[in-house]
């Protein structure tokens, strides 16, 4: 499927970025393979009796493997990206199109650097809204889905309302929420973003909690497990891959919810997020600045997705198909 392909490509990027920046504990693993025997050799040198004629073949450094850095999932889109940017710049220059209509990528880059001081704090505010909303969505989604699986009646009675909450267009309820919470813009933004991000976690986790292997359920029943034990030892672990899938979707959605809410709120409030900056720039026809802000939001979105994927791999790493690479 298209989406699967896309995910694998992004994961490829994530691995590549990780290895490039030496993120987290991946670092020691990404020392070039050929350096390790050398390290071992130098460390062992002092302990070893003076060299005999024949060298241990294991210590010979094999040729460095370039394939790691020539990952086509990474290189191909970079090439396309570069071609696109060059084409864009050339087109803008040749046609002489005014930069308040379409700025070239170089100008956008310059603006990004120049405006970093004003844009970045705004991005942080948006990030704050996103993170708080995402956290609330995660906790509430998880708790409510657990409540749903404890009683069929609760699920029957309340699930439709969760669906209604989901289907109401956020743009149309955001003004209401902002009016109701007019004393606290931040809370209003968080509530909007929460509404958008909450449902995928709820529905995914509910599905997961209910898709327990029925043989294992029987086994728990046979050994007289109580409700609590069944939840902790069986339902929650079974639901983990679904929950993680929900997190991946909701991470991005929280950001979108935050941005939409900021748009609707417009210029109100002193704490202005990145959407506010985009809005202001568009009023002033500062199109390069709009582009710069747009790039920042997109970058943030990708960062959220990649970190959620990494978290998911980390949590499911040892057991779930989605996170393991089979050797066949």
């Amino acid at each position, binding site marked *: 499927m298209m989406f699967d392909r896309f995910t694998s490509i992004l994961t490829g990027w994530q691995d590549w970025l990780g290895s490039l920046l030496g993120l987290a504990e991946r670092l020691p693993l990404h020392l070039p393979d050929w350096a390790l025997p050398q390290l071992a050799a130098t460390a062992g040198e002092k302990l070893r009796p003076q060299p005999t004629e024949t060298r241990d073949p294991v210590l010979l450094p094999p040729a460095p493997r370039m394939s790691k850095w020539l990952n086509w999932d990474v290189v191909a889109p970079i090439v396309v990206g570069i071609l696109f940017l060059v084409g864009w710049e050339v087109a803008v220059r040749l046609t002489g199109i005014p930069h308040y209509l379409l700025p070239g990528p170089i100008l956008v880059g310059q603006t990004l650097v120049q405006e970093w001081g004003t844009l970045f704090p705004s991005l942080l505010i948006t990030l704050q809204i996103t993170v708080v909303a995402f956290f609330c969505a995660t906790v509430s989604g998880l708790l409510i889905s657990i409540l749903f699986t404890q009683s069929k009646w609760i699920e029957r009675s309340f699930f439709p309302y969760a669906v209604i909450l989901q289907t109401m267009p956020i743009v149309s309820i955001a003004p209401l929420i902002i009016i109701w919470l007019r004393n606290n813009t931040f809370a209003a933004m968080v509530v909007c973003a929460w509404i958008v991000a909450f449902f995928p976690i709820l529905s995914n986790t509910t599905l997961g909690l209910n898709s327990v292997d029925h*043989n294992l359920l*029987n*086994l728990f029943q046979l050994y007289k497990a109580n409700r609590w034990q069944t939840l902790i*030892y069986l339902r929650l672990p079974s639901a*983990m891959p679904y929950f993680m899938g929900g997190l991946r979707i909701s991470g991005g959605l929280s950001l979108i919810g935050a941005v939409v809410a900021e748009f609707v709120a417009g210029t109100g409030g002193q704490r202005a997020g990145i959407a506010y900056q985009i809005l202001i720039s568009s009023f002033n026809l500062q199109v390069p600045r709009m582009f710069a802000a747009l790039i920042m939001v997109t970058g943030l979105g990708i960062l959220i997705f990649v970190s959620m994927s990494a978290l998911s791999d980390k949590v499911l790493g*040892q*057991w779930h198909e989605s996170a*393991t690479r089979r050797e066949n």
Partner: protein
Amino acid sequence: MPTPVITLRQVSKVYTNGTVALQDMNMTIQEGEFVSLVGPSGCGKSTVLRLIAGLGNMTTGSIEWGQTLTENHKLAFVFQEPALMPWATVMDNVRLPLKLAGEPKHKADQDVLESLQLVGLRGFERSFPRELSGGMRMRVSIARALVTKPQVLLMDEPFGALDEITRSKLNSDVLELWQEKRWTVVFVTHNIYEAVYLSNRVVVMAARPGRVVADIPIDAPYPRSEEFRTSMLYNTYCREVSARLQEAMYGVDHHPPTFAAGRSR
């Protein structure tokens, strides 16, 4: 004097969708017996086992338990699929029944290791189920069943999904363990040869509605070696069971002549 451990009296089961899975089933299982249930697919073998295990209610009839059983840990169940928790190590999977019974970890570990020893899986404590072969997963599942030291072991086509070589290896291992531990075993299978090789008694069932059509004692001494599988006696019993099964499936017209003595209903 044999002591009955499980007695089914006139047990019927009708599922909510109207399927009559069992009708007036009578069966007595004696202490220490190895009884196999064979029958065509859908004749209610799993239903019987689940009812014995207390998973789901019977529509009419009763199941009585012998007095020799202690209330706790008397039962263990092995499913057709290994039904392991993929997120837990072999050790944690086998420990599960003890954990659910509230036994502290350090006390349970001794039993877990013992149980793994029995099925020949020492050294794989830290492995995850996905790292094991189908046969090894089944062994983990058996170890989990044995860890509570059950008196009655219910097995529902436990080796149905395995290849022939793994199956016959596990057959002889289970048989060896049974002789040592003297559990009462109810073993469901659709494989006649497996049933005859393992059992004291083979109970043949027919479908629609599920019922017992034959109850054939296998009078061959234990231990049963690999040679038993090629013996005349073994062949005779296989033919007998096979004939009964044919009858159960296609009616009396089809059945080939009966060779072995056996009490049938």
